[in-house]
Structures are given as C-alpha cells and as structure tokens.
C-alpha cells in the first residue's frame, strides 16, 4: 500500500517533469535563436574558432558599425595576452561585412572593422608591425543565409595567424 503510494507519487512527479521539460526545451530553442544576437550583434559561438584555449578568433559588429562591444573587447584582450605570450606570431585581421550593402562601401567597412580590432590590440601592447589588416568586404561570408542571424555572423573581424 505504502509502496504503491510512493510509486504513484513518483510517476506523477515523473509525468510532471516530462511536461515541464518539454516546455523548457521548447522555450530554450526559442530563446536560443534570439540569444545568439544582442541588438543585431552576433553573440553565439557557432562560427567561432580558437587561436588557443580560451582565445576566440573573432569579434562581431552591428550593421554599418565598427564599434567594439564589451564582449569583443574581452575577446581582443585575450588575443593580446596570447600574442604577448607568443611574440613570434604575427596576425592578419580579416575584416568582413554582410551582403546588405554595396560592394565598394563594404570593402571600406571591412577595413574599418579590422582596424578597430587592430587599434584595440595595440592599446594592449601589440606592435602594429605584427598586425596586417585585410578587408574582404562582402566577398567571404561564413553563413550563406539571407537572414538577420546569418548577416550578424558575417559582420566580423577574424584574427588569423600569419606565420
């Protein structure tokens, strides 16, 4: 009798759990897509690669902007620390734009974004001799989608080892 009751309760709890977790996953998926962007800056990690443990290779930008976000500055500080520890490594900063602009303006915008990253690395002690800037404009998207999330992944400056 007692065992029965316990079992019954357990089942009820289990059932409740199932219902709840179903709700929770649904919600999570919904917030996940939105959770990958703040404003229109990409905050996800799908496309991010790592130069070393804890050193992400890229930072993201808002539409038509080259301002570094708090998260971008944190990434670049980690890159600067890594570059200080590895004085023989030089880098190329590849600046990119999304597809929603004219080709020539995007080339300039990519250059401006990569330079924003370069300036920040320099304020953390990295010599400009070690940094080359290369803009690809809208020529090399990582995500071929035609939607705001894809565009946010493509508005980026990627730090690539040059040697």
């Amino acid at each position, binding site marked *: 009798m007692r065992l029965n009751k316990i079992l019954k309760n357990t089942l009820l709890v289990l059932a409740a759990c199932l219902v709840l977790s179903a709700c929770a996953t649904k919600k999570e998926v919904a917030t996940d897509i939105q959770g990958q962007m703040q404003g229109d800056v990409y905050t996800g990690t799908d496309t991010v690669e790592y130069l070393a443990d804890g050193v992400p290779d890229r930072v993201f930008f808002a539409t038509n902007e*080259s301002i570094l976000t708090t998260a971008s500055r944190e990434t670049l500080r980690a890159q600067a620390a890594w570059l200080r520890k590895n004085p023989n490594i030089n880098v190329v900063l590849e600046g990119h734009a999304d597809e929603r602009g004219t080709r020539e303006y995007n080339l300039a915008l990519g250059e401006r974004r990569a330079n924003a990253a370069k300036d920040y690395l320099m304020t953390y002690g990295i010599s400009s001799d070690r940094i080359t800037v290369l803009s690809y404009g809208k020529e090399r998207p990582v995500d071929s989608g035609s939607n705001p999330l894809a565009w946010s992944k493509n508005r980026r400056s990627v730090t690539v080892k040059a040697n």
Partner: protein
Amino acid sequence: MTKKILILLFILIPINASALIEVDITRGNLNPLPLAVSPLSIDEESRKSFEKILKKENIGSEISNIVENNLRISGLFNPLDKKAFLQAPDIANLKPRFEDWNLIKAQALITGKVNYIDDKLRVEFRLWDVLAAKEMMALAFTTVPNNWRRVGHIISDKVYERLTGEKGYFDTRIIYVSEEGPKTQRIKKLAIMDQDGANNKFLTLGNELVLTPRFNPASQMVTYLSYFKNMPRVYLLDIETGTQEVVGDFPGMTFAPRFSPDGKKIIMSFAKDGKSDIYTMDLENRIVEKITNHPSIDTSPSYSPDGKYITFNSDRSGYQQIYVMKNDGSDVKRISFGNGLYGTPVWSPRGDLIAFTKLHKGKFYIGVMRTDGSGERLLTENYYQEAPSWSPNGRVLIFYRETKTNSKGEGFSAKLWSIDLTGYNERQIKTPTDASDPSWSALLSN
C-alpha cells in the same frame, strides 16, 4: 581586337537629311516601331566561300539576325516575322515594293547584300521608309570575314541613330566578373563579351579574387581590383595584349577604380587606418593626388564627362550618401537627401544624370537623379542589386542582381540585368556563369 581601322565605310548615296520616321526614346516605348529586317541577300559563290571560312551556312541571314535581335532588345523596335515577307531579299534590296511591306504593317525596312571579294566581306545595306516610299540611308562596309558580328552591330547602330537621332550602343562590349562556386567561397574571373552576350571570353583564371572591372572610355584598357598575393590593389589590364600592372601600390588597400573621361587618370579609394579617401593617379607620370581628406569612408568615385566634377559616396553624415565636388576636391556638396542609404553614383555619359544604388527598408533600388540631386527616379526594386553602368549613349543601365537564399542557405545566384532610363524594358543578359560588376565599353567604332 581593335578592328576600327579594318572596317571601311562608304556612303553609297547622299542621305536624304530629313528624318522621315522618328522614334522618341525619351519615354517608355509601349508601341515599338514595327519594321522588317529582310535577310541580306547573297550569291551562291559568296555563300559557299563564307560557309568554308566561318562555318555558317548563310552569313547574310546570320548578320540580319544580329540586327533584328539588337533592335528588338532595344525595346524601341518590333522586328516583324520573316515568314510574312512577300518580297525576296535580292529584289527588295534593288527596289522594295512598298505596298507589300505596307501590307504587313512594316513602317521601316532594312535590306542589303553580302559579297565575298578579295578575301573580304563586303556588306551594303539600305534603310527604307515604307510609308513615304523613300530610301533613308545606304551604307557599305568592307572588312575581314571574322568581323561579321561587328558588321551586324554597326548596321544596328546606324539604323538606331537614323531613326532615333541618337548614337547607338550595339557595337560595344561588356566586361564583368564571372562567378562560380558556393557563396562562401566564390571563384571570380574577369570576363568580356559582346553587348549581346556573344564572344564570351575569360581574361583571368580565377586563382585570385577580382572585382569591379571598368573600361577606359577612350580605349580598350580596363582597371579593376585584384587580391593577387592577398593584397587588394588596383590594377590595369590591356585587353589587347593581356598585360597587367599594379597602379594602386599604396601601403594599404586600393579599390573602387575608374578612369577619367580622357582615360589619362585613374580615380580610386585608398583605405588606411579605418578611413577611406579618394585619390587620383596620372597614368603617364604616376603623380598621385589626394582628393578627399576626411575621417569617413569616401568611395565609389566617378567623373563627370567633362572631367570637371566628381561624384562619390561618403558616410560623413553618419550614413552612406551621394556627394558632388570639383575635381580638385573643393566645394563638396551632398546631393542625396531621400530616405535610405545611397551608394555607387555613376555620372551619365550625357552629363545630365547620376545613376545610383539605394537601400531603403530592406530593398535595393537602381535609380537616377539630376546632378544637383533633384528629380530622383527609382527605376527598379529588388532584394539585392547594385553597381549600375551606363551604355555609351546614356540610355540604358546595366547592373547585377543577387537572389535571396532559402532557409538552408541555398539558391544563391548573381546575374546581369539591363533597364532603360525610362524604367521600361528590363532584361536579363545571359552569361555562361553567374555574373556581377558589369561595365559597358564605349562604341568600338564611331
């Protein structure tokens, strides 16, 4: 490839100066002029000779087809079905029976003949006003047989000019960027073709990214951007010899090149430290001049046809807008004030208009405005399109259009399109691969 000197042009009979039929090209032509292009007649011996050399069964019909196609795609003319023609080509060229042509509602008639003389191709053609029963024009050309397509284009230009009162644009070429491969890793090559899509040829191999080729309006030189050795720089290419040289070898990216109207200078942007300014380089003495000096992005410069002014786009107001300045960089004035962003201004060869790309509420438009920014007219709206280039007579714009991908990121394409200044007659220009960044040459023969 310059065959200008090889094409000898004779005026057969003094032309009756007053245009009888007139086609108004300043408005959208909803009733294109019905005309008949009678196949050029050819004697059997000449036909056989050309068949041997050019592998074309009847070169007379082939040339007529070029003329017919050109006139049709101009949107101003309606070439009638040959099956309805009552008079044989050889007799029509001697003296058309105007009542026969009138019967099928042709208002103008083109006739002519081809001969094989001394290893050369000789063409004579006549343009007739059917209603007035009069000859309007008669011309003859002699050239090497391989030039037969150009003969068709030159005839088209002469007919267009006689009937509209303005220069044609058929004996021209388009340089563009051929695109292949996935959107994330496109392979791009410079390519060139006749204005009607024939004679397509690739000029680079696709080993490095190339962008924005532009013709020298005064010669067959091209300037473009190449990522050779991963250094985006402005280059010059001689399409006759294939010689390439870097012109924008600055300590940073040079891009957005165009020639001055006399072909002696290149105007371009140079990006350094996050700012892009406009520079010119004299191709003779290599003297570089800085034209703009502003912490903003200044790019896509284009000269007025007299060379006295430059239009460009800049985000100095906070957003991309169109500006006009004197050629020394003084007297900068913003001319675009509508809603949205404005880019890629290109001055019309006629001098009166500036074509542009506009981005507003997620849509891209190709439009034109007067050089003071007034009279803005949007010609076409799409998901993505940009980079208009003018036909040499300033009546047609060519540009490229990209498609939206689906939810899986598939379905991307880039194609060339053209549209009349009137906003009518929008057409896709067929290319063997995907295509972008078109630039229209000047007339090859004048």
